[in-house]
């Protein structure tokens, strides 16, 4: 009965869908009233050209996401921003991004992305948005936000200027980059933070990079992923959501479900298209089809995320493309595409 009620609600939410933000329904609650929903916007890459001129398509992607977020009915309890608000981490870019975000009617929690960070190691971001890692509780669910994009001090300090450092890190495939990690300080904090949380409390963890190792060359990677996973292991229901990759990814490692969220700015190719290095894209992930470089919203999108009973169902709404649903398969204990899991997705033909 409860399930049916929920699905009915889900239908209404789907109809109230948003592009290119994600909507998360948290249905851990014991009663219908305890369920709640939050929206998720990520990877807008607001980029200054000069003075007041910013890359328009990225402005428009974020502006649109906020407008659709404000239109959601029923409304979200809060909004998550998944990182990379700015492209080169400058004050004008962060200010401009936050100005667009200020139109959002709901309380927003932010995740740090590498494009927000490497100019001044997150100082300006922090001055506007607060700590780089933190946790909060909402209606019986424990939420954790990590800064997963830091690297070792040696790399961080070897550059002649913040601009140079940011420029290197902004090139996703720049071989002079360095692998991301959460680091010892945050891991210690995380252990302490989770010590007071009971093991059957549902956990939702937000990071910018995947807390799993997929492809080192593009930092689809967190170097201490295994150590973080070990800290999360004792909890019964864990969901990790990450941005950064600008594409559909999902995976299951032990008790932890992983899902990427879509970007508002642009899509990335899958690592497998770069044949010079091995990719560890989860075998589980059925890749998106890609075809249309002439459509400015192609391969961006939004998803309605149902975290029913602690397991995630992603309902992906892709502009001008077939919708997809990646749902937790209770029997096989992993997320699977309900339609395409065992076969390739046919290429788009509409262009």
């Amino acid at each position, binding site marked *: 009965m409860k399930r049916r009620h929920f699905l009915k609600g889900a239908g209404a939410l789907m*109809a109230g*869908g*948003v592009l290119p933000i994600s909507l998360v329904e948290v249905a851990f609650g014991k009663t219908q009233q305890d369920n709640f929903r939050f929206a998720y916007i990520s990877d807008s890459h607001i980029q200054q050209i000069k003075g007041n001129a910013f890359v328009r398509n990225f402005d*428009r992607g974020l502006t*649109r996401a906020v407008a*659709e977020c404000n239109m959601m*009915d029923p409304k979200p309890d809060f909004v998550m921003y998944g990182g990379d608000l700015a492209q080169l981490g400058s004050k004008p870019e962060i200010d401009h991004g936050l100005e667009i975000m200020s139109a959002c009617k709901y309380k927003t929690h932010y995740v740090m992305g590498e494009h927000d960070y490497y100019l001044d190691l997150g100082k300006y971001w922090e001055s506007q948005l607060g700590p780089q890692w933190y946790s909060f509780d909402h209606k019986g669910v424990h939420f954790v936000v990590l800064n997963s994009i830091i690297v070792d001090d040696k790399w961080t300090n070897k550059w002649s200027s913040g601009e140079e450092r940011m420029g290197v890190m902004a090139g996703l495939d720049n071989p002079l980059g360095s692998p991301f990690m959460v680091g010892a300080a945050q891991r210690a904090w995380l252990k302490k933070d989770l010590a007071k949380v009971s093991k059957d409390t549902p956990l939702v963890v937000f990071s910018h990079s995947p807390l799993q190792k997929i492809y080192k060359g593009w930092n689809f990677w967190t170097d201490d992923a295994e150590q973080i996973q070990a800290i999360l292991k004792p909890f019964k229901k864990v969901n990790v959501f990450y941005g950064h990759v600008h594409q559909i990814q999902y995976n299951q490692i032990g008790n932890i479900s992983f899902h990427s969220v879509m970007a508002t700015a642009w899509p990335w190719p899958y690592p497998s298209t770069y044949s010079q290095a091995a990719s560890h894209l989860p075998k589980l992930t059925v890749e998106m089809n890609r075809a249309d470089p002439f459509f*400015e*919203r192609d391969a961006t999108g939004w998803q309605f995320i149902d975290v029913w009973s602690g397991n995630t169902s992603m309902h992906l*709404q892709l502009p001008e493309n077939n919708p997809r649903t990646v749902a937790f398969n209770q029997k096989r204990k992993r997320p699977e595409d309900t339609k395409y899991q065992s076969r390739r997705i046919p290429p788009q033909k509409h262009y």
Partner: protein
Amino acid sequence: MNIILASFGILAASLMNVAQAATPLGLPPVPVPKNNPVTPAKVSLGDKLFHDKRFSADGTVSCSTCHDRSKAFTDSPLKVSEGIKKLTGTRNAPTVVNAAYMHSQFWDGREPDLEGQSAGPFINPVEMGLKNHQPILKIVRSDPEYRKLFKQAFKKSGKGIKLRHVQMAIASFERTIISGNSPFDRYYFAGDKDAMSDKALRGFKVFLEQGRCVSCHTISQTHALFSDSRFHNLGIGFERINKDVKELASAYRKAKQKGIDVDVEVLTNKNTSELGRFAVSTESRDMGSFKTPTLRNIAKTAPYMHDGSLETLKEVVKFYNNGGRVSDSDPTFDFQSGGIRPLKLDDAQIDDLVAFLEALTSPEYQ
């Protein structure tokens, strides 16, 4: 038996060739649904139905009233269409010319094909105003000329004639209203270097490059439909609903769940009309978006945009040049498509682009 089938095969193939040979320069073969092949009998029946004013509540309006061949199948220069008793709707009549190539019909794509589209206007209160389709069936089942034509086209008579036959005949007629052969086509597809003026040629360059027009008004190496059949929010008419968009969207979703007639709503309620494709899909991504129209014969079909709010091609080009704003002091709405942006065209480029658009007129509409 095999021999007979084989010869049918040859016959079918040769008919196909005839059809392809008849396709005007610059167009691909017309897509025809398998269950409604185009036949001469259906086309002449559809032609008659299309022009018959008896299918309106007061006998004054036919399909051709708003889709007039002498006006490139529009009702230019009307801003929005006039139905019975001079009642007006909310939208500028889209041309029937090359509508056969569109992936959906109406400005908001609320019908998937010409068959579906053709039934709507008869019973819309501000168009032909019938209460239902019965009066049409009554006429076509009893009128001697129609009885003959329906027999020829569908081998049907009396109650065997259904509304869907009327729709299939009108759609078949509309699949013959295709036009290419414009100066642009002669230049681009037939290699006639003198077909377009230098001014239009410069305009074509603007069309392809700085003007970004081709992103939605698509052309390919073998043909040019000048439409991607997709839906975009340009900012036209959106000011009316921008402030109340959340409330209007919620109210519309509720109304739609209760089963309102979308066709009637969008043509009789100005706010609902501006929801655009959203009124069909109720998806946020479609808020205020309308289908890309063809540009063929555009010089003959003023005024422009879904609400007919821009009077000349120059006004349209200036609207795009301003990043989807009539005046550069107007606001840019949050729901406007990300592909719309200020173009920084100078006056000469604007004039060149208009000259190019004027080179898209087919000889039959000159």
